[in-house]
């Protein structure tokens, strides 16, 4: 028997690592992967709560999160390709045209 809080703490740790990766990494593709990590952390807490309350709707919400993640990955990677075509770099520090 594993307490519900263990799963939620693991979810919080994964979310924190995702936030850290988003802020620390400079490669735009790795930033995207950090966002996926955060979405996965949220999915874990959805499933844990579904098991705790015996409610299936948590699983349906995970399904919707995955759909949004897939759409986001498709559009985001297309944007990355467009950025690379015009700027010839994947480093977010060099994509600074709007910066003062």
């Amino acid at each position, binding site marked *: *028997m*594993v*307490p*519900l*809080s*263990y*799963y*939620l*703490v*693991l979810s*919080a*740790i*994964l*979310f*924190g*690592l995702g*936030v850290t*990766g988003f*802020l*620390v*990494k*400079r*490669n735009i*593709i*790795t930033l995207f*992967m950090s966002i*996926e*990590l955060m979405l*996965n952390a949220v*999915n*874990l807490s959805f*499933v*844990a709560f*579904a*098991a*705790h309350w*015996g409610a*299936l*709707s948590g*699983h*349906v919400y*995970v*399904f*919707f999160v*995955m*759909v*949004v*993640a*897939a759409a*986001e*990955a*498709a*559009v985001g*990677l*297309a944007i*990355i*390709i*467009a950025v690379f075509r015009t700027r010839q770099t994947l*480093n977010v*520090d060099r994509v600074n045209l709007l910066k003062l």
Partner: protein
Amino acid sequence: MLHQVLFFFFAAVCVAGALNLLFQRHPINSALSLIVVMGSLAVLYLLLGAEFVAAIQVIVYAGAIMVLFIFVIMLLNAGEEEHAGGSRVAAVLGYPAVALLVGLAAWSVVRSSGSAGLKLGGFVGSTEGIGYLLFRGFLLPFEVTSVLILIAIMGAVVLARKED
């Protein structure tokens, strides 16, 4: 007992994969460690009785989405990340801030949920039940997601198209 052993093993694999994602400099190594994280999360979903979610986690996330990532990494021939001189303020304030955030979330969760335990096999979410929910109560959101996917496909095609 079995539940605890499996939980701690795959939770450790999960956290190690996420840490490896941060420490690797080459994006392809980060992508592969993210696949490890997703695979072990699928096992945790199985422990929680979410069979359908575990299956689509492996098929859609670790399969389709990560293949898309790796495809783009190889298409753009992404090399090693350039080392940016991170500011000292970020190192001194940023990491403790994230640790504080995680600690606060963990503390509030542990305090409020008490010791309510989850039994192995105590709750099994059947695919049939999810189908009933999806096509009855959640029918409108389900249809909206199909439109969302369609718009995402069109957006990806338009954005990645070659300019002529």
